């Protein structure tokens, strides 16, 4: 160092080296973690919420009022839809009750048949699908019959018995 301060043509390159030295605290080394650890770190960072918080929405007063109006209207719509739905179900329920009461007095045999309940769980057919936005070209098969293996084989009627 002291040598480099001496103006000497031979040591000019040393001068530049010493002056423009970048100082750092301690010894810095590139941190290398093995691939397996890196994978776990990646998985953790995918799970954690840090840096994934979206920015706080800053609305002006007008936009805020607009937003709240829309939200309120949507709530009213949803409430009315729910009330309508419940009223409809109630109506259906009452008509079921009335029909059964009626049947009870008018035809006890039919009432017995109607109020019979299966002991096992009755399941919806597997062919029933939840509707989608884009239905198939033939949305409904009108003359549908289940596959042959699902139809119970009827007992063959002999000509003698008939």
């Amino acid at each position, binding site marked *: 160092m002291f040598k480099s301060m001496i103006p000497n043509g031979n040591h000019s390159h040393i001068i530049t080296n010493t002056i423009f030295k970048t100082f750092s605290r301690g010894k810095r080394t590139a941190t290398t973690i093995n691939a397996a650890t890196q*994978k776990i770190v990646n998985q953790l960072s995918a*799970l954690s919420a840090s840096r994934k918080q979206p920015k706080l929405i800053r609305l002006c007063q007008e936009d*805020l009022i607009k937003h709240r109006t829309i939200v309120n209207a949507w709530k009213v719509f949803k409430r009315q839809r729910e009330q309508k739905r419940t009223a409809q*179900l*109630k109506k259906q329920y009452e008509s079921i009750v009335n029909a059964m009461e009626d049947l009870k007095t008018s035809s006890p045999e039919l009432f017995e048949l109607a109020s019979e*309940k299966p002991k096992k769980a*009755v*399941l*919806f057919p597997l062919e029933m699908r*939840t509707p989608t936005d884009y239905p198939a070209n033939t949305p409904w098969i009108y003359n549908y019959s289940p596959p042959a293996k699902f139809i119970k084989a009827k007992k063959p009627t002999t000509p003698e018995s008939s």
Partner: protein
Amino acid sequence: MSVSRTFTRAFSNSSSLSRAGYSTVKPVHHLVKIEKAALKPNYQSLLVPKDDILAVGYKPTEIDQDRLLDHYHNTIQSDLMLHFYKHDAQKISGNKKRSWGEDSPYKMYRPQKKPVGTTRQTRDINPINFKNIPQLESVVVQIFNKHALEDSYLNISSRLLLSQITNVKAKQIYAKANILPWKMRAGKPCGAKVELTGVDMSQFITTLSELVLPRIRTFKGIKLSSGDRSGNITFGLDPEDVKNFPEIEAFQELFPNLTGLHITFKTTARTDDQARTLLSSVGFPFYKA
């Protein structure tokens, strides 16, 4: 130095000092916990309800059509009501805790007797009417990862797997008991769990019934015997089956040791048969084991 009884019983201030008295007023101040930190003006922004657009954690919830819920309201609900209708049906009372009787004052505050034959109460089964038609409440998806018992970092991948599949951040679950042969120690993380409701639930059910289960060759359905007798039905998926989830399929190398899943459907049905009928409406087959 004994204080004379006549003195202590005197109508004076000193009487209360020498008597071991007690208050009949229940001390409330240390039973009711008040989070005073929440009163800080810095935290006011955190007290805004999350569905408010001004809240810090605001997340719009209704951004999409819920196909499954719409189908339920449009088609299934009224069908179920008609199907489960039973004329002149009465409430079936559950197995409840029993009173010890009222003939003695000593029985007044005694904890009630356990239900007959069991330790848990069971629910009443009300006849189905237009108010209590069975509906899916939530879906609980749970992973038990036994490898995580030894190396807890292995639990991260099962948490991530669950979060990827369900779109909800999974909770870590911990071992409750010390079981030596399973190398289980209480407090060790050993799996993950999520409870899905609303749109996430519908999304998960549609993925499961339309994409995952049809691609499992050995899948026969949910066992008809499955259920907890109060309308909640559980079934499991093997590690091989979990690969069929579209979120996992493309990134199989990220999940080297896959674990199976337990999927529980919580319903408002009060019997398993009702729950099975409800589940079959969203496309789950059942089979007799």
